[in-house]
Every structure is written in C-alpha cells, then in structure tokens.
C-alpha cells in the first residue's frame, strides 16, 4: 500500500502545481502546463502500446486528428454549423454536444479506426505496423483535407468551443496514468512484456499474442483520440496537419528516452522534451531556424542511444511508486542498475534458431 500512498501524493502535488500556476502565472503558462500534461498522457499511453508490447506504432497523431475533428464537429455551436460544415447530416447539424460525451465518442472513433487497422496489419509480421501507421497519418490528413463539407478542409476548424481547462487535462492525465499503471502491473502487463521479450515463447505459454497486441494498439488509440479531442477544446483550432509525423517521432523519442516500458520514464521524458521545445521556440523564431527543436530532440535521441540505450529507467518504475513488491525484474523497482539492450534499435532481430518457424 506504500505504492498507492506515493501515487496519491504525486497526484496531490500535481494538483497543487496546477492550482499554483493558475493563480500566480500568466494564461500562457496555464496553457503551456496543459499542453505539457497532454504530452505526458500521450507518451505514457504510447508506452503501453509500444513499450510494453514491443510493437512499433507511429499512429498517435492520426488518432489525435480523428479525435480532434470528431469532438470539434460534435460540440460546434449550432448557429455556425450550417456555414462551417454544410455537409453535416441534420442529426449532427442540429445538435451541440457537451464535452464528456463528445470526448468519449472521439475516443471511440479513434479506437474503431485502430481496430480496423490493427486487424488487417497485426496479422502480418514485424515492422508492417510502423509503415501502416505512418501511412495512416497521411491518409487521415488527406481525408480531412478532402471532406471539406465536414471539416473546412485545409482551412482548418477554428472557433471550437473552449470546453477544456487545466483541471480537465489534469483529470485526464491522472486517469491515463492510473489505467496504464494498472495494465502494466497486472497479468496483462506481464503477458505483454513476455511477448515483447520473446513472442514464440509467450505463445507457447498460452498468451494470445494477436489479441493482446490489438488491445494495446486500440487502447493507445483511444487515449490519443481523447487527447486530440481535449486539446482542440483547449486551443480551439485544429488543422489537417496539426498532428503529423514530427509529433509521431517526438512521442517515440519520449518512449525511448524514458526507457522502453517505463511509465515514469516516459512521463519525465515528455516533460523534458515538451519544455525544451517550448524554451527553444523564441530562439527558433528569432533565428528563423524552424525545426531547431526537432533537430535537438533527434540529437538527444542519438546521445541517449549512444550512452544510455536502456533509457532513463530501463523498463522499471521508481521503487517509491511500486511499493511493497520487490521480486520484480522489470515491472518493479530493482536495486541493480538497468542492464537492458538497446531494444528500440534491435527490435525484432532475435537470432533465428531451429525452434523458430520460418514458414
């Protein structure tokens, strides 16, 4: 129960931070805090999809885009809907949804899309998922661009109601953290890590690999869909290219820097990367060196892979959060330093042996 108390404390401390920032700092700082927390939720959920399972999905931005547009359309003020979204069917054109149902439907839409993509791609082997989800980002953007009767195409949707405040985002991060922590520290999490470590051996101990991969992929997509929805109600605009390949790259980097499978690591990496990019923004603008922060993220990744390939935390969590259990190897705290291999780099290249069926 020590672990639970530490989590509660952490949640309270974060609440205090949100309250403090809201009281004492500018609206800019408040928005920044919300966006950083959103990145934390995204990175932590990607840690479940990719870090625990060994999958390599780049799909988060696609699911965010879907979530953002779905929720924006559902909540848009009725009196301006006819002008902005002329093609909407009457049911949607005449209704103006509240935040929570809209976000739930947005998450559901992203999850359904992930289910379809996952069912068709996860049956194939290896790195198809990376390629397919990369393609998905482009497909979604193209669709959003072309469905201009619903989305205003390339113009993007502006004037989306600001229904989200830092407390909504706070609640969202806490919920995502709670769910991911539960998944990781359960039988499901162990089975996921088992299939990451050795898929064939996991199958042979009764793990339904396809079902677990689908679950992890769909779960991550639902979180990303909800994150996209909440963000659009924070910043009130969304464009087809708002969430693209650079974001996919940044999120994957957060997972690698944090340590594959470590939720704490991903959260910490998300905060560091998000704050660093924000700090660099004035520099980018004054030097007109756009993309500088992306480049620095890439450099950080290379340095990490060179000097600490297992990431900040390996696959582990800090002992304080784990609490009582001390027999864990990766899912719980361990006194010995992490000795993992650079799995993100060598993913799926286990040597083939006579046991490994090649056909």
């Amino acid at each position, binding site marked *: 129960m020590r672990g639970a108390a530490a989590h509660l404390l952490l949640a309270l401390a974060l609440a205090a931070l949100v309250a403090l920032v809201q009281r004492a700092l500018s609206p800019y700082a408040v928005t920044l805090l919300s966006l950083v927390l959103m990145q934390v939720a995204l990175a932590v959920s990607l840690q479940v999809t990719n870090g625990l399972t060994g999958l390599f999905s780049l799909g988060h931005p696609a699911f965010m885009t879907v979530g953002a547009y779905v929720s924006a359309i559902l909540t848009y003020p009725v009196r301006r809907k006819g002008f902005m979204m002329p093609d909407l069917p009457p049911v949607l054109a005449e209704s103006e949804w509240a935040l929570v149902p809209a976000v739930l439907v947005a998450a559901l839409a992203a999850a359904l899309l992930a289910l379809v993509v996952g069912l068709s791609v996860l049956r194939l082997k290896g790195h198809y998922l990376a390629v397919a989800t990369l393609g998905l980002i482009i497909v979604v953007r193209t669709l959003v661009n072309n469905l201009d009767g619903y989305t205003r195409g390339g113009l993007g949707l502006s004037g989306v109601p600001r229904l989200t405040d830092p407390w909504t985002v706070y609640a969202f991060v806490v919920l995502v953290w709670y769910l991911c922590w539960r998944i990781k520290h359960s039988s*499901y999490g162990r089975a996921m890590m088992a299939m990451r*470590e050795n898929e064939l*051996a996991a199958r042979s101990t009764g*793990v*339904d690999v396809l079902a677990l991969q689908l679950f992890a992929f769909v779960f991550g997509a639902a979180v990303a869909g909800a994150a996209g929805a909440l963000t659009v109600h924070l910043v009130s605009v969304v464009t087809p290219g708002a969430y693209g390949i650079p974001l996919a790259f940044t999120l994957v980097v957060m997972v690698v820097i944090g340590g594959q499978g470590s939720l704490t690591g991903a959260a910490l990496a998300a905060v560091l990367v998000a704050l660093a990019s924000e700090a660099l923004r004035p520099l980018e603008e004054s030097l007109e060196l756009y993309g500088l922060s992306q480049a620095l993220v890439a450099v950080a990744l290379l340095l990490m892979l060179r000097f600490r390939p297992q990431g900040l935390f390996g696959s582990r969590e800090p002992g304080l959060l784990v609490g009582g259990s*001390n*027999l864990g*190897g990766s899912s719980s705290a361990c006194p010995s330093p992490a000795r993992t291999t650079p799995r993100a780099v060598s993913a799926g290249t286990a040597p083939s*042996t006579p*046991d490994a069926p090649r056909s």
Partner: protein
Amino acid sequence: MLLQATGLGRRFGGVVALEDYRLALGEGERFALIGPNGAGKTTAFNCLSGVLRPSSGRIRFLGRDVTGWPAHRMARLGLARTFQHARPFAELSVLENVMAGLHARAGAGLAATLLGLPAFRRAERRIREEALAILELVGLADEAGRRAGDLPYGRQRLVEVARALATAPRLLLLDEPAAGMNPAETDQLQRMLDRLHRRTGVTLMIVEHDMRLVMNLCSRIQVLDRGRIIAEGPPEAVQNDPEVIRAYLGQRRRHAAVG
C-alpha cells in the same frame, strides 16, 4: 490415450523434415525422442505444440482433434513445451517469467484489472503464490528476484521448465533440457523431473542427447532418423537395435571415444 498423432509430415520447401510420424502417449508416460541432429525431433515438437502447422497428418489430444491449432490454444488445453535454445523473457525477473505463464490460466478479467477489484487482487495473489511454489519445486526459489537474462545458461533452461509448468500442463515436451548443463546440473534436472512426475503425474516427452538421462528417466523411446521413425520400444531393446546403433548411438560412441 492422452495424445495420438498419425501420419504427421512437415516439409520446408523441398526438404522433408518429418514424414509419416506417429505417436501414441498414455497418461503419465515418460517418453523420449532421440536421433541425430537434423533428424526432425524439434520439427516433431513444433508440429505437436502448434508452433508449426503440419503439412499432413492428424493430432488428437485429450480426446479432441487439435490438428492445426495455434500454439497458445494448445498451451491452454494442456500441452506445454520448452525450446532447444533458451528463450527466457530476459528483462523480466525469474518470478515474473513464471507468473507470465499463469496469465492465460489464472489472470483476472480486463474490467477487474482496470478497476483494481478484489477479484483482480485475488487473482494476482494466486498467480504469485503458484509461481513461487513452482520455483520451489524446480529449485529456483533463491533466484526469484533476479533478472532472467542474467542467469547462467543452465539456470535459464530451468526457468523455461518452470514457465511451462505454470500452464499446468497434462503433457510437457522438453527439447534437449540438459543441453548447456554441467553433469551436476543434469543430475539435479533428472531428480527434479522425477519428483515432478511423482507429484503431478504429468506426462513427459523429452528430446535429449544425454543417453544416461534418457535411459534413467524414460520407459519408452522412439528413434528418428532423417525424418522417419526407425525404432520404438523400451530402452534395452532400442539400445541394442542394430539400425539405431548404425544411425545414431554407434556414431555417438565413436565420438565419445575420440573426444
């Protein structure tokens, strides 16, 4: 009859790895499959355990036709196996390796897990207790908290046995379990398998080159050469079969004499 295979065959492109393989295992038997390298022993295991789909033939297990079943369903039905080359979940602790083997059988449902319901906590407690008991049984209790990838090779092979046992198998296939073990470890393995068999009555089928282990442990032996069965019977009969000596045992004796 626990398991019955008839006419099993498997080819890889032009290579016939296994042909007209048959097997009939009774409940509680201790059975060995031997033969020279490349004879098709691992392929037979792969077909029986659902890792590979056989090109021909049928398999019945526990009264059901399980031909073509995938590996995870075979494991859930009660057929567990280890691999010729250790495949530990390296990043997980030894205990977690075994606990992972209990997921399919004893894991809580998704809703209970996400909500942290009492059913979830009960399931986790049971998984941990059963895993610890299995580690005790195979003699790995002292290494429960160690990262599996850090164990010496011989101990990793034991982790695989423990993980297979976690699925509560009716039939356990062990592919060269003593490979990579020193003589002391092999003796320990033999005693452990004996104890396991006495306590649980699990049916054992092993592929092994260590003839002492095979002869001590098993009451029936099948010999495979170039994908075909060349002999089957009790140890004494097989040991003195001229065909077996020509194809496998004689060759091993010569090697032993030279080496």
